């Protein structure tokens, strides 16, 4: 546990000192959403209708931006090899890095969501569902994304390849996340979708660290 926290703390400190990753992710998120009123027209009714979907898709794309960096810098400077040699199981190290990734990208995205809700003229009911669903879904996306990042490590075309690997796997999360907001807007309970999202999170939590660790072991081989 101490080692787990040490890895989380190290990644957070690196993110804090090296740069603007979180700020860039949030800026991309806001910018991507802001483009839509120009694309579909600024009518409040239309925006309120498609707004939750826009926020979802933008959040998905934004959380993918920083994925490449989850293992890339460690791979380049060799600390990944030290991590694989450490007495801590590599699966746990992956989990720690996913935690740090979520804290630096997922959490800021959720924090920026109310602002976007105002810009898109979303109703309170929609926002009240959007924030908890994103809260469950963004960790799932970080977990699944870590698998893609581990597999694409050291490949010739990292970024584009990563999106091809990860985006199809994000589809279930997007379907149920957007479905929850849709249900809430239609006056139904969003509970079923929330439960499915929680189930997806549990499955990802159990399987993804294992798959990502397998990928990492191959990369440092």
């Amino acid at each position, binding site marked *: 546990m101490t080692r787990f926290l040490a890895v989380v703390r190290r990644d957070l400190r690196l993110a804090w000192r090296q740069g603007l990753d979180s700020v860039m992710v949030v800026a991309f998120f806001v910018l991507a959403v802001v483009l839509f009123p120009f694309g579909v027209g600024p009518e409040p009714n239309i925006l309120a209708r498609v707004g939750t979907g826009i926020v979802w898709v933008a959040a998905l794309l934004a959380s993918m931006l920083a994925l490449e960096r989850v293992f890339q810098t460690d791979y380049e400077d060799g600390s990944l090899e030290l991590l694989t040699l450490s007495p801590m199981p590599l699966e746990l190290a992956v989990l720690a890095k996913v935690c740090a990734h979520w804290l630096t990208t997922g959490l800021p995205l959720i924090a920026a969501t109310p602002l976007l809700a105002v810009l898109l003229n979303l109703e309170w009911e929609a926002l009240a569902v959007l924030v908890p669903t994103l809260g469950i879904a963004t960790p799932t996306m970080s977990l699944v994304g870590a*698998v893609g990042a581990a*597999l*694409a490590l*050291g*490949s*010739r*075309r990292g970024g584009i*390849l990563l999106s*091809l*690997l990860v*985006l*199809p*796997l994000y*589809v*279930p999360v997007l*379907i149920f996340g957007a479905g929850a907001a849709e249900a809430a807007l239609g006056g139904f309970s969003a509970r079923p979708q929330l439960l499915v999202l929680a189930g997806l999170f549990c499955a990802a939590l159990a*399987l993804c660290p294992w*798959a990502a660790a*397998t*990928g990492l072991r*191959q*990369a440092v*081989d």
Partner: protein
Amino acid sequence: MDAAGKMFLKHANPQRFLGLSAVVLPWAAGATVVLVTAGVYLALFASPPDYQQGETVRIMYVHVPAAWMAMFCYSIMAAASAAMLTWKHPLAAMVAKCTAPIGASFTFLALLTGSLWGKPMWDAWWVWDARLTSVLVLLFLYLGYIALHNAFDDPGRGSRAASVLALVGFVNVPIIKFSVDWWNTLHQPSSMVTAEGPAIHASMLAPLLVMAGAYTAYYVWVLLLRVRGEIIAVKIRALQMRQAGG
């Protein structure tokens, strides 16, 4: 280990595989030609038009087996990937790699014919129901697998990384299978596997099964050709390395 297991391992040796596949290859090719001819005749001439769908039902004989093969190929690819990761067997890696483009083609064929069938039946080239969406995801998984396989300078690394992806993506296969039961979709549920047996008349079932047999024979044929090509390519590379080494 039982006899069957020993038998399998004996023929899983690449050199023996070359010998065995040389024997099987003409049979698979012949079976493909015969079954495709018979299947096309049965589907286009010998089977009746549907009482609701008319002549368009004949698209089914191309569409349904292609969709079956799309899932079948992915399952083979995932199984071969698991074998490759567990036992590091070179032949399993080749089977997985060579299955991917064939499976992707079947998936594309299923989507294309489904779209052509959907236009007269649903009055839409495409609808976003669970079956269609999950098959589209399957196509992207195939493409991701192929892209990941080719993305590394070291082919062994690409093969291992893609194997993990194939296993991760396997969660999609049961979703495709049961999507028509779990969700209320526009795509009709399975007529083949029901509690009361196949809910499809024998005059339509026969061409469907013959076409499915034809597709399977075609898969075996092309797979053997591709794997043989892979083995020979590895040999050539080894020879070139030896020459370069002096």
